[in-house]
């Protein structure tokens, strides 16, 4: 597969160097094309897209209230349908806070109604825009400003893919920027399908996860190889695992990120256990509903 050459997103955006979320949008728009309308709630992307008068995404963007991404996108699509503009894709683009937490109700509503939108969660595993506070997507053992050591996050990351899957929607996928062709293919597939589509993108964040800015791809890859982040799709209810983890040593993934510097041993073990359990569950689903 050849990655589309055309750059829709502008390169002078305001993300930090090495931002996974910025790269994810760049790839997503390559897949979706210019006839795309994007809805962005409060999150890092509020800043990345530029201040008043700017629009670095290069497609129409509606900045909206934190909890409203899916509902606003559904409203946009409804008017487009009434106008007969069926060739325009509507994409909600929210962080983990705007998706796992405050926007979950609106997300569930749109998924249950099967509104014809693509909902993307770029997941940097904390509230980065407000300065690295924990979210329900923060993994066990991670340090944030609201889970400072020694009281690091002590609950597992919410399994959002499976929450969305419970809504019986046509397409759900996970992706990372380390596998760009896989990511682009998933957006192209999402664009081609009618109804509610959900794409979960792991988005390493150098200042938030505390790693050097040139390690974003490496960390994204390690997340998949260690089994921390599973790459799979659920298409019309059918599970497909895109990349079987190599189950590399988890410590390799944890040790290059400062947010795990103070993770106690038992939490590292809990993380390993959670990875194993999630993989086993996914295997069963892929076997029975593949």
């Amino acid at each position, binding site marked *: 597969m050849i990655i589309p050459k055309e750059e829709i997103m502008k390169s002078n955006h305001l993300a930090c160097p090495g931002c996974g979320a910025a790269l994810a949008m760049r790839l997503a728009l390559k897949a979706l094309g210019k006839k795309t309308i994007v809805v962005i709630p409060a999150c890092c992307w509020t800043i990345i*897209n530029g201040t*008043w008068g700017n629009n670095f995404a290069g497609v129409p*963007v509606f900045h909206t209230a934190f909890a409203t991404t*899916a509902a606003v996108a559904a409203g*946009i699509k409804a008017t487009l349908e009434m106008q007969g503009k069926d060739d325009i894709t509507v994409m909600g683009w929210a962080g983990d806070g705007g998706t796992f937490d405050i926007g979950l109700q609106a997300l569930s509503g749109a998924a249950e109604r099967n509104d014809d939108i693509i909902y993307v969660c770029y997941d940097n595993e904390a509230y980065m825009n407000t300065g690295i506070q924990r979210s329900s997507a923060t993994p066990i053992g991670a340090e944030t400003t609201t889970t400072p050591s020694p009281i690091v996050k002590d609950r597992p990351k919410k399994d959002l893919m499976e929450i969305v899957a419970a809504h019986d929607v046509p397409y759900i996928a996970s992706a990372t920027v380390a596998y760009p062709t896989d990511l682009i293919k998933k957006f192209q597939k999402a664009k081609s399908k009618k109804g509610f589509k959900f794409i979960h993108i792991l988005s390493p964040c150098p200042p938030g996860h505390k790693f050097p800015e040139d390690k974003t791809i490496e960390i994204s890859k390690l997340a998949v190889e260690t089994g921390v982040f599973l790459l799979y799709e659920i298409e019309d209810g059918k599970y497909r695992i895109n990349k079987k983890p190599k189950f590399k040593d988890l410590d390799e993934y944890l040790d290059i990120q400062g947010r795990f510097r103070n993770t106690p041993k038992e939490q590292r073990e809990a993380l390993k256990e959670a990875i194993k359990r999630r993989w086993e569950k996914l295997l069963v689903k892929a076997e029975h509903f593949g």
Partner: protein
Amino acid sequence: MKRLVLGGNDAVAYAVKQSHVDVVSAYPITPQTSIIEKIASFIANGEMRTRFIKVESEHSAMAAAIGASATGGRVFTATSSQGLLYMHEVLHWAAGASLPIVMANANRAVAPPWSIWAEQTDSLSQRDTGWIQFYASNSQETYDLLFLSFRLAERVKNPVMVCMDGFLVTHTKEPVAVFGDEIEEFISVKETRPLLDVEKPEAIGALAFPQDYMPVKIEQHKRISSALAEFKTLSDQFERISSRRYDPIYTYGEENADIVIVAMGSNAETAHLAIDLLNKEGIKAKLVKIVMFRPFPKDELIKAFEGAKKIAVFDRNISMGKGGITKDEIVGALGINNVVGIVCGLGGVDVTENDMVKVAKDVLDGKIQEDMILWGGR
């Protein structure tokens, strides 16, 4: 034109049906529910060609309305009380983004304790969200104001809320003159515009530093303020079709009254009877009904109060620790000191014409000089 017997809610649904609305997004709450049920049945029957997004909450109802409106659709929603309060954040968003959404609000008291009955504290506590607000007193007014609201919202690029006292206006059945095709020339004019256009990719609502933020807000203030004049222009057109006239305020009774009763919503209907009784007793009295509460009709009120000795403002609402909200608005805008505020009818308590007559006389005689709460007990 034909006559149908309709409650305020039915009248709203009929007006929405005739207004070529592209998208409705709404969530049920008493006493608003029959509006959206009727709209759903119109769509199911094929009488209306509209996308109805059955959202999971009022926050999403307004959010979906915002998305639909920003794409250039004509959009309607309806709510009440707790639902309106739940929308609060997104009400600001709709107005700030200059979106011509029209919403009907069934005025209902705010919990706790739970109440489903009439009170205007819900919508008046949304005073500063930047919405144009109308208060209808009967079914005909709700019907007519809906058409005017769609046109006004689109003309001035600002959302409009049409408020009706729960049950007293939403459910009281009255004959309503319903348009046939004659409303088409008025309502088929759509001045909606898509802010989101793939041919002209802009970002709406991006982060603005202080020097960018303030001019935007000044512009917004000008936009909503222009609604007073634009409403008159549209009213002229509407009057030619309907022979019914709407202005920011409405007056009834003696032109040169000694005592003025100010009321809004259902209280204004009752006040007509009170004015008749007062006039019969030889007391020169008139009603001033506030139809448009935002933007505030200051100049119209100054004129209407000319020569009045005393003004009694009946508020079916309360700002805790202060008193009646419209009374406060009047004093604040006009700087006059012959006004007494009467908080009454909270949570749906009846306010009768006899209550109004007695209070009006006492205010005129100077027996009541301080703001008061009208409460006779059980």
